[in-house]
């Protein structure tokens, strides 16, 4: 590469690179340093280093929040995927006119305000809200049941918010899938369900993986949803971070938890990245072997 193109490359790269180093990389590194800083009862940060913040993450009250975050995220992901699979399948197979309309309908809520959609659920589940009244009339719940401020409400609104993120990657993969393979499987004696689970699902594996990541990661870091429709018994990691910052004014403790959350998200992503590039390499060598 000659000097001139090198300079052009630098000139194009530098603006965003410098900006992101300054306002993304350095702040992220600050979290990881603050996590090891001692603090006093007034929330001031002291000199020196400590592991106390890390030990505090292993106390009982935090572990409860940690496990709750994990199970809520996993259940949300499983529900979103089980809705997305039939929907992606349907969208890929239907007429192009219907597909167009349904796709716009799926994407539309994504463009509207996130807070507003969360609030809409709060007002529906509210003791004075429509849904609650309906359930009481139908004798499904009695008048004293509280639909809000529990893990169930958090789960419901998480599924509501992230199901479009699950649908789109699965649809994208399904639209490239060769549906003749399903007919072939059924000609060879597979039932419709067998064909779906043993031919279609393996065929869109990459899309399923993307969907999982798109739903799981924002759910692990959820803050607004448990804050608005959840109660004390449905706090997640995000709520703890906010509580330690805004209520307890304990920046080192909040940093330790934030650093933990970053690792919780990044480590599986890196493993997944390495795994998928290995699969890609293998499939390339397989393809070469067949030539």
């Amino acid at each position: 590469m000659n000097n001139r193109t090198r300079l052009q490359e630098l000139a194009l790269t530098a603006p965003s690179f410098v900006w992101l180093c300054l306002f993304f990389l350095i702040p992220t590194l600050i979290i990881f340093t603050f996590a090891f800083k001692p603090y006093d009862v007034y929330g001031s940060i002291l000199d020196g280093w400590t592991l106390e913040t890390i030990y505090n993450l292993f106390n009982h009250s935090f572990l409860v929040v940690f496990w709750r975050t994990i199970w809520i995220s996993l259940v949300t992901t499983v529900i979103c995927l089980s809705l997305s699979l039939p929907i992606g399948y349907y969208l890929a197979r239907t007429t192009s006119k219907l597909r167009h309309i349904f796709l716009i309908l799926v994407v539309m809520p994504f463009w509207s305000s996130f807070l507003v959609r969360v609030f809409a659920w709060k007002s529906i589940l509210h003791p004075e809200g429509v849904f609650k009244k309906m359930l009481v009339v139908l004798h499904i719940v009695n008048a004293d049941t509280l639909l809000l401020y529990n893990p169930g409400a958090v789960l419901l609104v998480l599924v509501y918010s992230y199901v479009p993120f699950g649908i789109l990657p699965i649809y994208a993969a399904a639209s490239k899938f060769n549906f003749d393979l399903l007919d072939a499987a059924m000609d060879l004696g597979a039932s419709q369900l067998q064909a779906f689970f043993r031919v279609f699902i393996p065929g869109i594996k990459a899309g399923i993986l993307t969907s999982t990541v798109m739903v799981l990661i924002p759910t692990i870091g959820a803050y607004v949803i448990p804050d608005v429709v959840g109660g004390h018994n449905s706090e997640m990691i995000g709520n703890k971070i906010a509580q330690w910052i805004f209520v307890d004014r304990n920046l080192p403790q909040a940093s330790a938890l934030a650093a933990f959350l970053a690792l919780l998200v990044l480590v599986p992503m890196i493993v997944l990245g390495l795994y998928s590039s290995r699969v890609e390499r293998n499939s390339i060598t397989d393809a070469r072997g067949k030539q």
Partner: protein
Amino acid sequence: MRQSRFPLIVTILTLIFLYLPIIVLFVNSFNGSRFGGIWGEFSLKWYYRLWSDRAIWDAFWNSMIIAISSTAVSTVLGSLAAFALYRYKKSGLQKVNYGLIYTPLILPDILMGISLLLFFVFLNIKLGLFTIFIAHTTFCISYVTMVMLARLQNFDFYMIEASQDLGASPWQTFTKVMLPILAPGIAAGALLAFTLSIDDFVITFFVAGPGATTLPIYVYGMIKFGSPPLINALSTILILTTFVIVWLTHRLMGEETA
């Protein structure tokens, strides 16, 4: 062979699930009664109260100022970055650059919020509109770059060489050849940045400080402590506005934005 109806049924039920809350909100915004469960009478009083609320207008203008400025800066930075990533694919610097641009997309919002808050506190920078602008530009850059990068896949670099061969100066090549071809991509990136900035709550909440209120921050305050019918009305306006914008861009840009 008969197709199973199951996928269609799931699709329709899910769409009902997606739109039900929005419809309830919409209907209730015209409900004269304070409580959503009882229908009072048809009324526009919540809209009228909204219109005469000074604080909402202030929050609205703050949101606009931040969205416009951070969209402008992030669109320029993101487009340049996408161009570099595409043009110099093989270079080692671009691999690092890609990592730096991609990582903010996979980290939860709350992490960017707390890290920028600590950064500003550490440097003694006063929290306010300026820090919100910095934060919004930072997360918008990654999204703009990804949209542009997808668009660049169809860009033919021989166009640049052709225009140079025909005697165009680099500036002429840029304004007369590249910009017109890339304009739809740049517009799509800018639109995404604008929507993300207008809608962001979590990151803003961390870096806003006490004085600077954006529309989502204001809405959040109303959700936590305020009057539900007013939020119904505000939400209906916000949702209708976005639907109109999406519909318009759809018409303007044709099928490809779907």
